[in-house]
Every structure is written in structure tokens, then in C-alpha cells.
């Protein structure tokens, strides 16, 4: 991809924290592409988003009140009931165990998608690495939940399908479909965010007035939708892994 001018925070990170990251990356065997400036835009903005979320929730925590909820509390109660309601719809019982993960996933992806709309910032989800990391974490999470809910052996027997003689057919199909899940999650989130930016930039180069703003508005809608879809699919995968046939 083209070399973009460095985000101001990335420049700060590179100037002061460049050497520790470069030596850390060397020690784990993946040296940085440019050893003098190892910090990239996406990781710096991810850290910024995490800091923003933590500050926001710490502020919210201090303002929680049962008798007189303020606007912020009501907003986040709405978000919570939305995520929890979806989780209870998707997973039959025991949804409460998974709501923290889904809520964190939804809010993290939403904030990362939306921060790219602010002029001067770029969405970390625009680089393929970030959605890949999220998709791999969802993959590991739902398999781990499956192991925990059903036991190691019984969960693996799921791949053999409903009847034993179908196993040679079902195992490759199930394997491929399970491997396709992180792939599709990654590409869906990455391509939507990347395409949103490219389309806005393209229309910005064609017509300077009004039309790119329409595409940015569409991009806001798509940002919400993609965060929701990622979380919903994570819920469906967890539900599939945890489901008991009664």
C-alpha cells in the first residue's frame, strides 16, 4: 500500500519508543519492516482507542447511579441491553457468560471503525492485520468455549456429523467451513472499511463539494453495521459450538 504520512501520535511513539519496540520485535523473530520507525499507524491508533474506551468507562463508572441515571448511563444501558439481548437470542442458555466478550468486541470494533471518520485519524481496521487479529481471537474463543461446555472429546466428535458413517464426508466439510470463518470475518471487516475510505477518496478527487460527505455518512452507517455483524457472527459461532442437542 502507498506510504501515508505518519500520524502525529505515531511520530511521537517512533521518536521515543522506537528502540524498545524494535528490539522486542527482533526478539520474537518478526523484525519490523522499517527498524528505525517500527510503530505503525494502526497499532498506535489501536492503543489510543483502548485508552479512550478505558477513560470513557472509568468516567461512566464514577457516574453510575440507581436513582438518577444520567444520559451517559442510559446510553450505555441501551448498548448493554442490545448486546445482551442479541446474545440471549443467539445462545440458548448460559449467554451471560459470553456477554462480556461480545460487548468488548462490539465496542472495540465500533470505536475503531468510527475513529477513522475524524479527519486526520485512520481506522485501524483498514489494515488487514487488525481484523485478522480480531477474527483469530473469536476463532480461539468459540473453540475454547466449546471445549469448556462439552468436554474435549465430545466437542471434537461434533465434526463427524450426525451419523458415524457420514464422518469421512463431514469431517473435511466441517474443517473447511470452520477455517473459512476467520477468513470471512477478516475480509468482510477489512474490505468494508478499506472500500469505504477508497470510495470517499475517489469521490473527493472527482467532486470536491457535498458528494464525499454522502459517502462518509454511508461509511458511518457501514461502520455500525460491520461492528454489529462481526459481533453477531461471533455469537452465532459460539452458539453453534456450545449447543447441546437435547
Amino acid at each position, binding site marked *: 500500500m502507498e506510504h501515508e504520512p505518519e500520524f502525529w501520535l505515531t511520530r511521537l511513539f517512533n521518536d521515543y519508543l522506537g528502540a524498545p519496540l524494535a528490539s522486542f520485535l527482533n526478539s520474537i523473530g518478526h523484525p519490523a519492516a522499517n527498524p528505525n520507525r517500527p510503530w505503525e499507524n494502526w497499532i498506535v491508533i489501536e492503543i489510543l482507542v483502548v485508552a479512550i474506551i478505558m477513560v470513557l468507562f472509568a468516567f461512566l463508572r464514577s457516574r453510575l447511579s440507581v436513582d438518577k441515571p444520567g444520559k451517559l448511563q442510559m446510553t450505555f444501558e441501551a448498548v448493554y441491553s442490545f448486546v445482551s439481548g442479541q446474545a440471549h437470542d443467539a445462545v440458548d442458555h448460559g449467554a451471560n457468560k459470553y456477554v462480556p466478550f461480545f460487548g468488548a468486541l462490539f465496542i472495540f470494533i465500533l470505536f475503531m471503525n468510527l475513529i477513522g471518520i475524524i479527519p486526520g485519524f485512520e481506522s485501524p481496521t483498514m489494515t488487514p492485520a487488525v481484523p485478522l487479529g480480531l477474527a483469530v481471537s473469536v476463532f480461539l474463543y468459540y473453540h475454547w468455549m466449546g471445549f469448556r461446555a462439552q468436554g474435549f472429546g465430545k466437542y471434537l466428535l461434533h465434526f463427524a456429523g450426525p451419523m458415524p458413517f457420514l464422518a469421512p464426508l463431514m469431517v473435511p466439510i466441517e474443517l473447511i467451513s470452520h477455517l473459512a470463518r476467520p477468513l*470471512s470475518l477478516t*475480509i*468482510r471487516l*477489512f*474490505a*468494508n472499511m478499506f*472500500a469505504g475510505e477508497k470510495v470517499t477518496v475517489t469521490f473527493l478527487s472527482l467532486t470536491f463539494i457535498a458528494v464525499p460527505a454522502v459517502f462518509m455518512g454511508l461509511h458511518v452507517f457501514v461502520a455500525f*453495521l*460491520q461492528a454489529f*455483524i462481526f459481533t*453477531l457472527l461471533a455469537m452465532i459461532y459460539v452458539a453453534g459450538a456450545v449447543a447441546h442437542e437435547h
Partner: protein
Amino acid sequence: MTRKMLFLVGAILLLASPIFAQTPAGGGGGTDLRLPFAFLAMGIASGLCGLGQGKATASAAEAMARNPGASAGIRFALILGLVLIESLALYTFVITYVAKT
């Protein structure tokens, strides 16, 4: 009627076979043609995606007209279906960028 049309379209597409006779400009087999084919693939993917999403939206609108009480569930299914169909066209978009390297 449609079978005749399909045969006609196939025959016309075969008229383009001289393209295989051209000497590769990039000095290798077919390195020149990756990008045009990627663009064509993007066009086909977007067209078919449009058809699929149109069908989904039409069914959703009709269902909401028949049963306005179930609008919330139908709207949810519509959004879910549209996003999943959209993602198929976006996979092809990503391949265009892979072909650019």
C-alpha cells in the same frame, strides 16, 4: 428461448479468442492480463451481488407489507442477509488489490 440466448452469448464470447494469440507484453505468460480480468471479475461480482440483494430486499418488503407486526424480525433478517451478500462482492474487491501487486 433462454437456452438459445445463452448459446448465442457463449458463441459471441468465443469470438474474443484471438486475445490468446497476442504476445505477452510483460515478458511472461499472462502477467499483462491479471488486472483487466480482475476488473471484469469485480464487475461480475457487483452485478450478481446487486441481483441477490435486490431479491432479498424485494422479499423483505413484501413480507413486511403482509405482516407489519413482524417488521422487527424481518428487518433484522434483511440486514443480516444484505451484509452477508455484500461481503461476497467485497471478497472480489480484495482480489483486485491482490492482482495489482
